[in-house]
Structures are given as C-alpha cells and as structure tokens.
C-alpha cells in the first residue's frame, strides 16, 4: 500500500537495527518505555524487539486506553446498560474488560442491548434512528479520541438530540507519566512519546520530562521504521548526554498540536479532580468529564450509577510492571490467578499489555535462547 509500505521496508529496518547496535554500550542495560498502546501493538505486530540488542528492553507504558479503565467504571457502564430502553454503545475492545463481576459482553448475553460501534458518531446515528430509546456512549481514550467524542457531543447539542448521552472516561496522558516518574523506584532511561496524542496536544506538554526528570523523549510514529528510528534517537541522546523532547513524527505532529481540537476539548470537557486508573490508583487531574455546558449529555447525571470504587486485587502488581520495577513473571499472581482468559490487572486485560504479551510470548523467548 502506498504511503504505508515505505515505512515497513525490511532492508531499512536492518540498517537502523545495525545503527542501534553501534549506539549501545555493551555493558549498559537500557529500559525505554513506549507510552502508547499503539506503539506496543506495532512492536508486537512487526516483531521489533527481535531486531534490538539484548540490552535494550522495551517497557510497555500506561497508554492503552482500554486497560486503564478500573473495574468500578466498568460496573457503572454495566449498570447503565441494564436500564430499560437503553442502547449501550462502546468500542469493541471494551466488551471484554472485566468489571468486578461481569464484562459488558456478559451483560449483553444477559439481555442488555450492548452494541459495538467504531466511532461516537455511529452511536449518535443510532440515537437519531431510534428516538424512543436512550443511547449511551461509553467514551474511552486519551487526547487522541477525546476530540471525536467532543465533536459528537457538539453535533448532538446543535441538532437538539435528547436521547443521547455519554459516560466519559477520557483520560490525559501527562499525569500518569508524572506519577510514574515521581516514583522512587522508577528505572526508565527514556520515553517513546505518543505520536497520536501529540497530534492533538503538541510536543510542549512533554517538556517537563527532560526538564524535571532528565529523561529523553522522542515523539514517534507508529510504523516499524518510525519506532526503530525513535529508539535510535533516544539512544543517541543518552550517548551524547543530551536530554530533550525530539519529534520523529514530523510528518504528522506539529509542535503546537491542533489548536482547533484543543479549543473543542476545552469547550466540551473539564478536568476531573481525580480519576482512578486500573493498576495505578487515583491520579489527580488525570481525566475529563463533561463541562457544565454539556451536563445534559452526561450519562452519569442522567442515570443512577453505583459509582462504587472496586479495589484492584491486592496481589496485582501492575503498577510495578508499568514502572519497569518487576517483570511480568515476577508478579505474584502472574500465570496463576491472572491469565488472559481471567485477567485481574490492566497488563493482562489487553493482548498488548505487558503481561498478556509475556504470557503468550515468554516461551518463544525461551525457544530463542535454546537456538
């Protein structure tokens, strides 16, 4: 496919891999976090780890919007979905995320009208075509998807659609990163910055990472060559003693971000004082709710939701895995109580989470060692 295959050229990949190998100090161990779940996906899809030297380790960050949703919020969603007359809409990957007792897929099997949509606009379309039903959209995602929810709400308001509302779980990427960096046991050497979030917010919000925590950040695209190049740029900063926010994804990310999208976000959303993240606990000012101008569209106001906080199981050590303090297999419940079929923590929920990946890939690593 034109404009895509160019960024997947295996020949160029090998050249970059060679440059990376030349950049690392053999006795040093590097831990680089890819913040965004999209990067994690590409890393697995293309087998990028395989092209890296043994002492460059990629740590999967908190940027998977599905896996950070805490159990209590899933329970709230299920409670709304079970209301008479409600059509509950969400993205497909949300269906399998465990609440305290059930998933949305279970709720659907029990009779709730849960439908998978690919865009919030699809949910609005359902609301238009079924005016006698209440249509609720379960909004998730970072700054990348928040603008599409915002635009949908603006359109619903402009058209005067009354039977549409939204459970807002939009989160922001900077606070959890700061929380990770604040942690005394943090062991990360650098960050692959979330390219798609940066198309909206720009590069500036990440400048605190080099400034306050002396770690390099390279904002990266999502094709395999993008990621390899970004890793090389991080290693180069480390080798040269530089520490700054660099933009590898210049073909998409403007330094200032997307001002119109930011305006829409500011109009439709406001910051929540705090929000719970699965595996990471409460993080202040880390999520969005609907602003007072859009309160009528807030499903949490429109419906009774339990709003009960369901504690992560005590044995779950997702936080430590995300900080790179422990490896997935070092978690007490890994592979026993917590498996991809019955996930406890965020890292096992999504197939791209660090633990799910290790569960599926770990033996592969063993086979490689044997070769």
């Amino acid at each position, binding site marked *: *496919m034109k404009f*895509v295959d160019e960024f*997947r050229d*295996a020949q160029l*990949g*090998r050249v970059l891999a060679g440059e990376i190998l030349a950049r690392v100090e053999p006795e040093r161990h590097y831990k680089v976090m890819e913040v965004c779940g999209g990067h994690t996906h590409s890393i*697995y*899809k*293309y*087998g*990028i*780890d*395989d*092209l*890296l030297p*043994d002492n460059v*380790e990629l740590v999967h960050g908190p940027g998977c919007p599905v896996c950070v949703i805490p159990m209590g919020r899933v329970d709230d969603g299920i409670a709304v979905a079970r209301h008479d007359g409600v059509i509950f809409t969400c993205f*497909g990957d949300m*269906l*399998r995320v465990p609440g305290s007792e059930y998933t949305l*897929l*279970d709720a*659907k*099997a*029990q009779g709730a009208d849960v439908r998978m949509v*690919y865009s919030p606009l*699809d949910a609005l379309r359902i609301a238009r075509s079924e005016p006698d039903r209440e249509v609720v959209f379960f909004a998730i995602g970072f700054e990348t998807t928040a603008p599409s929810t915002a635009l949908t709400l603006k359109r619903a308001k402009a058209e005067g659609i009354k039977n549409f509302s939204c459970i807002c779980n939009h989160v922001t990427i900077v606070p959890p990163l700061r929380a990770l960096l604040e942690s005394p046991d943090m062991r990360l050497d650098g960050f692959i910055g979330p390219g798609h979030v940066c198309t909206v917010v720009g590069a500036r919000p990440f400048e605190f990472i080099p400034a306050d925590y002396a770690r390099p950040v390279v904002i990266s695209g999502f094709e*395999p060559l993008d990621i390899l190049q970004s890793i090389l740029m991080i290693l180069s900063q480390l080798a040269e003693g530089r520490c700054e926010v660099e933009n590898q994804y210049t073909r998409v990310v403007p330094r200032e971000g997307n001002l119109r999208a930011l305006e829409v976000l500011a109009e439709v959303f406001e910051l929540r004082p705090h929000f719970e993240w699965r595996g990471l606990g409460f993080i202040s000012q880390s999520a969005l709710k609907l602003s007072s101008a859009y309160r009528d569209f807030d499903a949490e106001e429109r419906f009774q939701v339990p709003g009960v906080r369901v504690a992560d199981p005590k044995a779950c050590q997702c936080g430590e895995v995300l900080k790179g303090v422990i*490896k997935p*297999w*070092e978690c007490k419940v*890994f*592979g*026993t109580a917590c*498996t*991809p*079929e019955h996930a406890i923590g965020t890292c096992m929920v999504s*197939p791209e989470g660090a633990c799910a990946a290790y*569960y*599926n*890939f*770990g*033996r*592969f*690593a*063993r*086979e*490689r*060692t*044997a070769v």
Partner: protein
Amino acid sequence: MSATPTSREQRILEIIDTARSKPRRFRDNQVTLAHGAGGKATRTLIEGLLVPAFSPPDGGTLRALADAGSIAVGGTRLAMTTDSFVVKPLRFPGGSIGELAVNGTVNDLAVSGARPLALSVSLILEEGLESEVLRAEVEAIAQAARAAGVEIVAGDTKVVERGAADGMYICTSGIGALDVRAALAPDSLKPADQVLVSGPVGEHGTAIMLARDQFDLDAEVESDTCSLWPAVDALLDAAGEELHCIRDATRGGAASVLNELARASRVSITVREAAVPISPVVHAAAELLGIDPMYLANEGRLIACVAPQAAARALEALRSVPGCERSAAIGEVRREPPGMVLVETSFGGRRVMDELVGDPLPRIC
C-alpha cells in the same frame, strides 16, 4: 530480548505450558458471542462440554476434532459432518446463505479426504420472511449442490415466530466416501512439512464486513465461497499419502486452523508473512480496521500440510485448479516450540500468532 531464563521464570513458563495443555473445562455461567467465534472460548465449549458428553470413555471419532467424523459401513469408510449457517446479511457480494450452507458442509467433507455424496438441508424460517428471499436461497442451495456434485436427499422445515430468528437459518449435514488415496489427520504433521494455502486469505470475512454497511467503506471484494473438492482431489492425486492434513480456514481464519494443527500434532508452525497471498482490498480494509487478515474467515480456502519432497508437486497441482491459481507455500512445520504458531514478519522480526480471543465479527457463516 531475554537472557537465559532464571529458574523461577522457567517454573512460571512451565505453569503456563501446563495450563495450556490441560483439558479444557467449560465453566462459564452463560453463553456469550465469544463462544461462537471459533477461538479460545469455542474450543472450551467443544472440548470442555460437548466432546466429553458425547464420546465413549475409551475414544470415539469425535475426540479427533476433525472437520468430519468417520464410520465404517460394510467395507466402505464414510465421512459424516454437519454445520449450521446464521450469516447476516443473508446475501453478500459473491454469495448468500444458501450457497454457503452447501459449500460449508461439502468442504468439511472434502478436507477430510472424502468425496462429498449427499446432503440433508434443514431450514429454520422466521415468520414474515418474504417468499422471494426464500425462493432465491432455495435456488442458491440447488445450484451450489449441482456445482459440487452432491444430491440433497433429506430435509426439514420449521417456522418460528417473528423475532425468534433473523430471516432464516440453515443446517446441512453431509456424507462422503473417504478417498483411498487419503491418509489425513490433524495430529500427523511432521517437522519440515510445508504449509500451503489455496489462495488469498480473508475475502469472505471482508465481504461480509463491508456488506453490513457498518463502515463507510466501499470496496470491491467478493466472498470466496466455493466447493473445495476439486482442490482436494488435485492435492490427493499429486501427493497421496505425503499429504498429512488439510483444513478449510473458516471461522477464526487461517490463524486458528494453524494453531489447532500445531497443538494436535505437538509441533510448531512458522508462517512467512510476506508469502501469504492477500488481495490489496482485503489488506487495505484490514489495515484500516486494525484486523489481522489471518483471523478473517474464508469459505473457499484450504490449508494443506505436505511432506517437503511432495510440496512442489502439490503446489503445482493446486495452482492448476480453477480459483486456486494464487495458491502459495506460506510456511513450514518445525519441532520447537510445540503447539505454537510463529510468524516471521515481513519487517524481519518474529512474533507469536496466538489463538483468537473474543470475536472481531459475529455471525460470518
């Protein structure tokens, strides 16, 4: 990526291995759509509930988990299979539920090495279904059966009240005569076997997806539904006993079939991603929707595992069958790590191609 595993890590990996190889138990409180998707949940339902309930304690043909069971009648070995069809929408580019209902069962017989002989057809119709729609599907069934050379010898009809079925559902059962040239079994893969596919993957799944109008995507792609017997016939002619197993890559796609075979034969299968034939439309649609075409359903594609010395012969024979011109050798069987499917990505890395968890797309057949 990782150094030599430590002893604790080793132990954890063994726990995972044991958990994976343990017989499945069906413990879910209710059926969800995931149980119908052809992935892990489907396997749990089949291996954890159905097979133990239906099989005699000392074996039974069902335990082989093949596409068709076999029975001996006098001196003849027959294959028997059944399948039900609930596809939505009823008609889609390249086919319809009626055509699918014939080819699906014919193909389960064919890939078991049996020449399809006869089918039964049961129709479950929803009150209010337009006669025109019914007539068209009956004609599609008749035509597909003629094309596949099978006779419809028995049937049944039921009508349920409005809302209890979505237009129509079809169940077909079939019997076929096991071919004397065939020695096929899912547990007979050997290291160095070559893996062949009979054409581009993912076309049926993509056609259904686009026919549902869920996405504002317009693209020309047709379901690949067709009878696979001519392809199987050609393979058996070319490779005979050196052909170790054939599967049709329906629900769960090629990835699910490869996982089943790797597990059944306790071998590893390595797929060369760059060698897998995919049409540009399927590639683009899958890319846009974030779906791996290897998990998309096919209704007229088979995967064959053949001994290395017969591979070139088999591939040539396959390519000479109309509709299979784009057949390709996409990978090979290896010894380690048993039960796993690995992919050599076109970018030069490697990854695991796991079983499907959950359901990207319900009701595709």
